[in-house]
């Protein structure tokens, strides 16, 4: 490999947040040193959100001046979106591609600070129940429509229309009761209650600003060719094959972190869908494609050894990839058993072997780039003696013929559901199964296909479930840990909270989270989220494994590949091909 040091911005600002964590890495070291991770960001499971921070950008101090023109072939390992407009549903695969042609109102930088983008300025009312947003006056969508206050009104209405079938977007504007036009370029959002995460929501590509003219065509047409203000526009979409994006020649609204201004260098991007990991990497190796994502750890190792290939890996914000424990039934209704399980398995060994040391461990339920994350290695370290002690205390003292612990004739056993598309490969479970057995804990692995995986998850038919939730805000905790989101323990159906904890311990967590969401003070918000994390850690509701990541592999002659905060999605605005 070409050993050029990437001009990856080192981000000291990032350090305080993640200081104290062994994870504290600069982007510089991340790139290549820590090519990450695992499996498919099965968009399938990806949830979404707001808040949080950054990570990203990349690219290199090129040896020569950027060249304009050419076609970039990008192969994604994520599933093909059903709709190119991320308002409809709202998942990672949509975010990946729509980052190239859609832009939100605000820009959230790597420190979690929100700044202007399509919006020029904003102003909260005293009671924080109204927000005035003034947009730039010089922006036209690629269909000629000018950006104005009406645009915001139409976009919010579109999101809220039940026929649009929005999932992520509708959650983001949940608190927005109505929108009012103040002037040609200023709109006022009226809220039903204060929402600390609202600006973060409007900094997501899942809540982009689209041409009202285009939206008026209806969801079906809009899905095929959403119209935004981004550096590229959707040219065509051959389902199950590729999306073709062409350059927006009038582009002049780059994100604050962009490396240049004016139109993008690439003339065209072919966005191909290649879900098979081996095939995708082989395609990169043979030069059929220029960039791939969902780069497997073993392939990252191979890319490292290949001078023709480079890698770029960055974390995504939100709830980390974790094993969520179902507290609604035996044996995880006992916190001692939950901790014993967490203490018995060796996450580090798994990361070292299966991921070939390419993925850093997470010791927090929040991603290392999410604001207010609090790494807690003491809580999640392996400690077999303690696991044994806890299980003894919990009454699992007898042993059966196979060496498993029993209580009242019942074997200490739990079932993990697993599916290809989630980020935790089955070999990790196999190792956990092996180490759990050492303390007399039986772990049964149920491999499922995505649909039955979710069916079981909805029905609470699991002991352990691998999960994550992408959102650029610590408020992701409100979604996945608030006990209000356990609506259907019996009935089945979607539930954001998958640990199912109720009772006083849950009440304490709820209280901290709810206060954090509405408090007017950012400092207090930080303290409350820290407290909530502490409570969550203590209850051992989940075992954090690693951050979700964007993992790119690309040909070494592709310059200027960057990840865009806050979601860590790749952007090809600065990208050019060093091919002569």
């Amino acid at each position: 490999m070409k050993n050029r040091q990437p001009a990856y911005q080192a981000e000291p600002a990032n350090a305080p947040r993640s200081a104290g964590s062994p994870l504290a890495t600069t982007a510089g070291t991340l790139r290549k040193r820590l090519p990450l991770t695992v499996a498919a960001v099965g968009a399938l499971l990806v949830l979404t959100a707001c808040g949080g921070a950054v990570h990203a950008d990349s690219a290199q101090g090129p040896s020569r001046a950027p060249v304009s023109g050419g076609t970039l072939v990008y192969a994604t390992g994520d599933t093909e979106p059903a709709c190119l407009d991320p308002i409809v549903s709202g998942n990672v695969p949509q975010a990946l591609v729509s980052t190239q042609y859609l832009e939100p109102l605000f820009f959230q930088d790597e420190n979690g600070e929100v700044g202007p983008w399509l919006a020029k300025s904003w102003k909260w009312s005293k009671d924080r129940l109204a927000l005035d947003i003034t947009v730039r006056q010089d922006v036209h969508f690629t269909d000629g429509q000018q950006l104005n206050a009406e645009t915001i009104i139409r976009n919010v209405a579109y999101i809220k229309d039940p026929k649009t079938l929005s999932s992520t977007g509708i959650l983001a504007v949940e608190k927005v009761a109505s929108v009012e036009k103040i002037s040609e370029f200023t709109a006022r959002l009226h809220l039903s209650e204060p929402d600390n995460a609202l600006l973060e929501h409007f900094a997501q590509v899942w809540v982009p600003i689209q041409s009202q003219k285009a939206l008026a065509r209806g969801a079906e047409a809009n899905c095929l060719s959403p119209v935004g203000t981004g550096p590229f526009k959707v040219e065509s979409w051959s389902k199950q094959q590729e999306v073709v994006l062409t350059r927006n020649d009038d582009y002049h609204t780059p994100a604050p972190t962009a490396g240049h201004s004016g139109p993008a260098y690439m003339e065209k991007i072919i966005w191909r869908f290649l879900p098979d990991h081996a095939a995708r990497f082989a395609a990169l190796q043979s030069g059929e494609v220029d960039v791939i994502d969902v780069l497997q750890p073993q392939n990252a190792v191979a890319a490292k050894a290949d001078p023709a290939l480079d890698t770029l890996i960055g974390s995504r914000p939100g709830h980390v990839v974790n094993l969520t424990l179902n507290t609604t039934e035996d044996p995880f209704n006992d916190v001692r058993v939950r901790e014993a399980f967490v203490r018995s398995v060796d996450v580090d060994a798994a990361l070292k072997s299966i991921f070939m040391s390419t993925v850093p461990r997470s010791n927090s339920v929040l991603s290392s780039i999410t604001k207010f994350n609090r790494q807690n290695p003491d809580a999640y370290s392996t400690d077999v003696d303690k696991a044994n002690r806890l299980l003894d205390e919990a009454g699992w003292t007898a042993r059966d013929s196979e060496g498993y612990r029993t209580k009242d004739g019942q074997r200490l056993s739990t079932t993990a559901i697993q599916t290809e598309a989630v980020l935790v490969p089955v070999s990790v479970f196999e190792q956990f199964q092996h180490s759990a057995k050492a303390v007399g804990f039986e772990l049964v692995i149920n491999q499922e296909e995505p649909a039955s995986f979710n069916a079981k998850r909805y029905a609470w038919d699991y002991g352990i479930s691998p999960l994550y939730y992408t959102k650029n805000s610590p408020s992701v905790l409100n979604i996945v840990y608030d006990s209000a989101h356990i609506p259907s323990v019996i009935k089945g159906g979607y539930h954001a909270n998958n640990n199912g904890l109720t009772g006083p311990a849950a009440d304490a967590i709820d209280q901290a989270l709810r206060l954090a969401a509405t408090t007017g003070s950012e400092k207090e918000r930080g303290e409350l989220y820290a407290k909530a994390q502490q409570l969550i850690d203590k209850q051992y509701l989940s075992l954090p494994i690693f951050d979700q990541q964007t993992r790119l592999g690309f040909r070494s002659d592709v310059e200027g590949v960057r990840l865009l905060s806050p979601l860590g999605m790749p952007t090809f605005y600065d990208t050019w091909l060093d091919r002569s």
Partner: protein
Amino acid sequence: MSTPTHLTKTITDPEEAMTHSIQTPVLDRSPERRGPAEPRPRTRASLVSQAKELFTGLGPGIIVPLVLMLGLVAAAAIPAALAPSGPLDMNPAEAFTAPGTAHWFGTDESGRDVFSRVIHGARSSLLIGVLATVIGLGTAVVLGALAGLGTRAVDFGVSRFLEVLFAFPGLLLALLVITILGPGVVTTTIAVGLSAAPGYARMIRSQVLSVRRSGYVEASIVQGKSRAFIVRHHILPNVAAPLFVLATLGVGQAIVWASSLSFLGLGATPPDPEWGSMLSLGRLYIGNAWWLTFFPGLFIVLSAATTTLLGHGIQRKLKDK
């Protein structure tokens, strides 16, 4: 998934049987082929020599696959005696060791010995193959016998039903079965078995029909034998022999198809070593650790080819007889 069955079409197809019966007398008339003037008498005393004759009569066409098959069966029966370590013994520190003296087939991502896992995997892979074939043949025998022995209406009904099943390509049928029942070894076995069933059934039907129309069944009717007698003493025994060949040929294909389902993520439950799922996991590491893909694949090919060769050998043997 019904592949092997079609290969034996040559012997079971009534059309074919007709051409044979036309040709046989011709061959019989050529002097060098003319039946033995005085066939060797068989006495009980010569049991030993008979056994000897049986074995020398087998030829390498049967002996080589037979020996290989015995090896695989041994691995399935007493894996612990053959494998240096347990299939689940982990040592993450030794992950991805290349094949060598310590680990003949290398180690996998959790540091498990691939050779031991391949040996232990023989049991589930062979079991899937055998059971799937048993399920397929069992279903097929019922359907085929119904069609072959039943009235015209029953035959019509069953044949149409088989046609419908045929219109689902094997993997499609298996996919549906698995999505309904959920993935796992048992389901895979059932799915593979069921999807092979229509092919078998069609052949059993034609075999039953050809026996039913044979001269000896007619002779038996003339003797006043009952239907039940004819079914029990003529049809069943004469349908059973080709069935055995079918089964042998089917096992190999069942193993291959089961492994394909494992590849699609619908197969065996981890951490049980099963060649298909080992292979499909190993395929992710094909650029880094080829041995994870190569050896399980090799054993799938080996066992499938072995059963096929064995089936062919027996088929030839039956034909010669």
